[in-house]
Every structure is written in C-alpha cells, then in structure tokens.
C-alpha cells in the first residue's frame, strides 16, 4: 500500500511543477512546433485536394473528436466503453431532429447536442462509476445495441429506419469556399476547440484525478480522490465529445439513420483509439486517419479485410506498443528532434 502511494506521488510530480506564463497555449505542448506544422498543413490541404478527399479528411476530423472523448475515458480514465457510438448517435440525432423539426440554424445544434450528451453522460455515469472494468464494458455494449431499435421505434421524431435527410450547411458567400471546404473548416474548428478543451481538462484537477485513478484506484481513493465523482465527470465529458462529433457528422453527411450507428461504430471507435494511441495527444488524429482510410483501402482486397486488419492490429498493439501509432510516431519524432538539435 505505502509503496503504491509513493509511486503515485512520483508520477504526479511533473504535473504539479512550474507552469509557463502563456498557460492557455500549453495544449500545444509538448513539442509545440509539430502541432503548428500539423495545423498549417490542415489549413492548406482543402485547397489542394479534390472534393472527395476533402470530405474524407472532414470525416477524419469528426472521428478524431469522438476519439478524443473516448481517449479521455479509456486512455486517461482507464475505463472501458464499448458503447461510445451511442453518444455519437445521440449527438447526431439531436442535431438532425432540431434541423428537421424546427429548422434550427445548424450552428445552434452543436451546443445543444453537446449539452444533451453531457447530461446523458452524467446520468449514465452515475451507475457507471459503480461498475468496475469489464462490467462497464458490458453495460455500455448493451446500451449501444439497445439504441438502434430504440431509434427505429420513435419513428415520428427520428424518421424510423428511413432516417432523416437534411440539407447541409452552406458556406457564406463572403468566404468564397465550396461546400466541401466549408464543412471541412467547420469540422476543423470543432476539432481544434475539442483538443483545447481536452488539454485544459487534463491540466485541471480532473485530469490529475483521472490519472491517479487509472494508475492506482485504491491508492487514489486513499489519497482522497473522490472516485465516483471524477469517474462520472470523465464519462460525461467523454460523452459530450462523442456527441459533438455526432453533431458535426450530421452536418457533413446530411443524413442520419439507425443503421449508421450500430454497435459496429462503437467497436470501430474503440479500435481507432487503441491503434491510434491510448492516452496520447496525437492518438485521436492518427486513430481517425486509421478508421477512415484503412477500411477504404482494405475493402478492395476483401469485404472482411478491414476487420481482419483492425482485429490483428488491436491485438498486436496491445502486445508491443500499448501507446499505439502515436507512441511509435512519438519515438520517431523524438529521434528526429534530436538529430535536428545536433546540427
């Protein structure tokens, strides 16, 4: 017991160290210049690619936002969710229903979708906080499975199996952008905001408490971390991000139907964050790229190929590189940085 606490104290030490003055920029660290480079590339890309590729990159951003949420829960909180597709779906449907029924201007759907999924996350987070490990996985899986028939049932509101078709957000004329580019920048804005939000969260008490819980639940509790409170909170923030991603999904696709949000989506999201890199900052983006592009390439080999690749990679990643692609990339970046500095 005492040993465990000592280790914990050691690992929190860096987090409580001195902070730089421009603390709001801290989410760009470590290795901030790489984030700026990535952001610059992200701003140029939509002007260089054909609309279909721009659309694909937009979807990468959508997935990245959802994976950010899942990363918060799994990577930082050490809890398993096999049902994050459900929050994604609730966010998507919230936006779709608002736009379909009340002709709500699309920008308003984002805060509402985020709020709805946050509250839903809080409500589910209360029992979830009492469940340990694999039981949480079970319950979230059951929720994801249950959601599809539920969406089909309330046909009046959700459009049933047929789903809802909506008009996509149009670019304001002053921008001079095409539709696909406008959607891309909307998704990019949401993604950047989401990254900043998560970075802020992780630096706050919440983040430190989460890490303490993940590393040693019992020790953390002994040290006075309010277990249930922070677990519930992590669940809610995580749900919010998945919901925001779902909302942007609705903008981008302009169509929602229950069969877009089967349990496969939840499992794909988990696969994405595991392969991308649990607990790492770049993990969600790499995971999003992976979830978007690997299936479309592998599909050419065989319909089963994406799953075979996903499944194998998840297992291999858990064996050899628990920090996923981001961990591997991080190693590459660090050695590259070192070479640069030597020159």
């Amino acid at each position, binding site marked *: 017991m005492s040993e465990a606490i000592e280790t914990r104290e050691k690992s929190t030490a860096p987090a409580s160290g001195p902070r730089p003055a421009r603390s709001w920029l801290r989410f760009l660290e470590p290795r901030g210049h790489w984030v700026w480079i990535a952001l610059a590339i992200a701003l140029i890309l939509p002007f260089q690619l054909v609309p279909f590729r721009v659309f694909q990159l937009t979807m990468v951003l959508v997935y990245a936002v959802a994976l950010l949420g899942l990363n918060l829960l799994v990577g930082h909180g050490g809890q398993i969710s096999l049902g994050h597709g459900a929050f994604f779906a609730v966010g998507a449907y919230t936006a779709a229903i608002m736009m379909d029924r009340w002709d709500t201007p699309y920008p308003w759907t984002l805060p509402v979708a985020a709020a709805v999924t946050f509250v839903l996350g809080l409500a589910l987070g209360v*029992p979830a906080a009492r469940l340990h490990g694999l039981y949480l*996985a079970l319950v979230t*899986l059951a929720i994801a499975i*249950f959601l599809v028939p539920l969406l089909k049932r309330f046909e009046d509101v959700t459009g049933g199996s047929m789903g809802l078709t909506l008009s996509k957000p149009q670019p304001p004329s002053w921008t001079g952008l095409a539709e696909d580019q406008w959607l891309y920048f909307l998704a990019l804005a949401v993604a950047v905001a989401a990254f900043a939000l998560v970075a802020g969260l992780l630096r706050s008490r919440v983040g430190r408490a989460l890490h303490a819980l993940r590393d040693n639940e019992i020790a953390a509790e002994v040290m006075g971390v309010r277990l249930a409170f922070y677990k519930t909170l992590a669940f809610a923030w995580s749900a919010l991000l998945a919901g925001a991603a779902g909302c942007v999904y609705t903008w981008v696709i302009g169509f929602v139907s229950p069969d877009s949000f089967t349990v496969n989506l939840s499992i794909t999201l988990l696969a994405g964050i595991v392969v991308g890199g649990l607990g790492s900052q770049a993990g969600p983006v790499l995971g999003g790229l992976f979830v978007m592009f690997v299936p479309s390439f592998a599909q050419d080999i065989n319909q*089963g*190929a994406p799953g075979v690749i996903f*499944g194998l990679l*998840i297992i291999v990643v858990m064996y050899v590189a628990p920090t996923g692609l981001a961990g591997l990339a991080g190693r590459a970046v660090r050695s590259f940085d070192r070479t640069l500095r030597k020159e």
Partner: protein
Amino acid sequence: MADFIQQIVVGLGSGAIYASLALALVLIYRFTGIVNFAQGELAMFSAYIAWTFLDAGVPFWIALPITLAISFVGGMLIERIVIRPVEGAPELTIVIVTVGLFIFVNAAAGWIWSFLIKDFPNPFPDGALRAGGVSVGYSTLGVLAVVGVVMGLLYLLFRHTKIGLGMRAVATNPESARLVGIRVGWVLALGWGLAATVGAVSGIMVAPLLFLEPNMMGGVLIYAFAAATLGGMDSPVGAVVGGLIVGVAETLAGAYVDVIGSDLKVGVPLAIILVVLLLRPQGLFGKAAVERA
C-alpha cells in the same frame, strides 16, 4: 393461460441457447477472470466449420464431433497464442484484446465464407408435441436436452475426474495449484478449449434458428452476458438458470408488455444487467464479488 404457458415454453427454448453461450463465458471467467467478448464469434466460427463439413456431404452426427474437437484445439491455441502474452495484464488490456479477437474472427469468417446468409440444417425433426393447447417444438426440446447434457458432462468432469479437480483448484487458488505441481498454463488453455467446445455447441444450435452469417451471434452475446451476470459470472449452474430466466423474461416482456413489443426486447438484457450489477453484483449463484481486486 395456454398462451401464457406457450410463451414460457418459447422463452425456455431461447433461454437454453443463451444458457449454452453463457456457460462458455462462465467457464473462461472462472479460470482466468476474463470475460471473453469474442466468445460468440468463436461459436459462430465453429458453426461455419460444421457447415463446411455438412456442405461437403458429411452426416451431421459425424460432423458434430469433428467440429467440437477442432473447436477444442482452436480454443486452446487461442489461449496459448493470443491471451498468454497479456496474462496478468490490467483488465482494460485483456478486454481490449478479446474485443480485437472479436473483430478479427468476425471478419475472418466473412472473408472465408462470405457475408451472405447460409442455410444450416436443423438436426432436430420438425413438428411438435402438443398438450392442452400448448405445443412444444421438437427442436426446442432438443436444444433443452443438449444444454442439459452439456451441463451434466461438465458436472461429471469437474466433480469426478482428476483433471476436473485440478481445474477447480486453479480456479480457486492458482498460486497454490502451481505449488502442488499443476501446470496452470495448460489448465487455462484447457479452460479456453472447453469454453470453445461448449460455445461450438451453442453456435451449431443457433445456426439453424437464425441462419448462418458472421454477425449471427452478435445478438445472442448480449443475452448470454445478461444470463451470466444474473446467474453469477463464476457459476456454471447460475449461467444455465440465468439463461433460462433471461429467455423467459425476454419472451414474456415482448409478448405482454406493449411498450416493449418484439422490437425493443433487446432492452431486457440491458435492464437485467444493470439491475443485477447495482443490486446484487455477485449474481444469484456467484460467490466472488464483482471487483477482483
């Protein structure tokens, strides 16, 4: 009244299916403390192996034992190759690995046998026993009988054989089991082999009822989880009783509760899992507490 009894009979029929997969889940949990999310997919894969033999003209009662044997060896190999490297790792890691296995096996079956639906012959005769307005299909009786036989065989194995005694020893105290000379690693593999065999029985029984396709067991898995949770994750008897209760509850809810109807029946296992975990986490027959600290 007859209608009510009829619904219970139907519920017992599907409950027996859930029970068989729940048994497989419980077998692995008892030995390793792992919930194998891929259990349903392994069962589906076994059903495909059986289908391949049947399709080649092998009679059912010959194809069955061959399939079971292949499943047994396959289960052992999976433990040795896939699970062994993460033995003792955090729960999160192991759950993720079995989810990876789930995705892999599901897709591999689609790759090998295509995602198209296949017809699977029913080993039991058509028709039904009728008494007082209630009819009990031979296939329902058959499924119940098979689950009974599997349960009985497992009981004999665990209670009356030396290897069964060794397996129970490993389940209760692996460290001490090692000290009396039991090769714990092989017992764990044996547990996976047994679970895969029981799962294969489940898959072969499900296939004729649901049609054979890679996502066949996806729906059954959540019911099996509910059954195992209700009965107690470490209790084989509990898995069977839990399975039957879940089957009956689901059927009755679908038939008599208008709000639920046939489409929202899948909410029943969710409700059962939640209620059990919050009120009596060890389940009806379980001994171990939920948290294995």
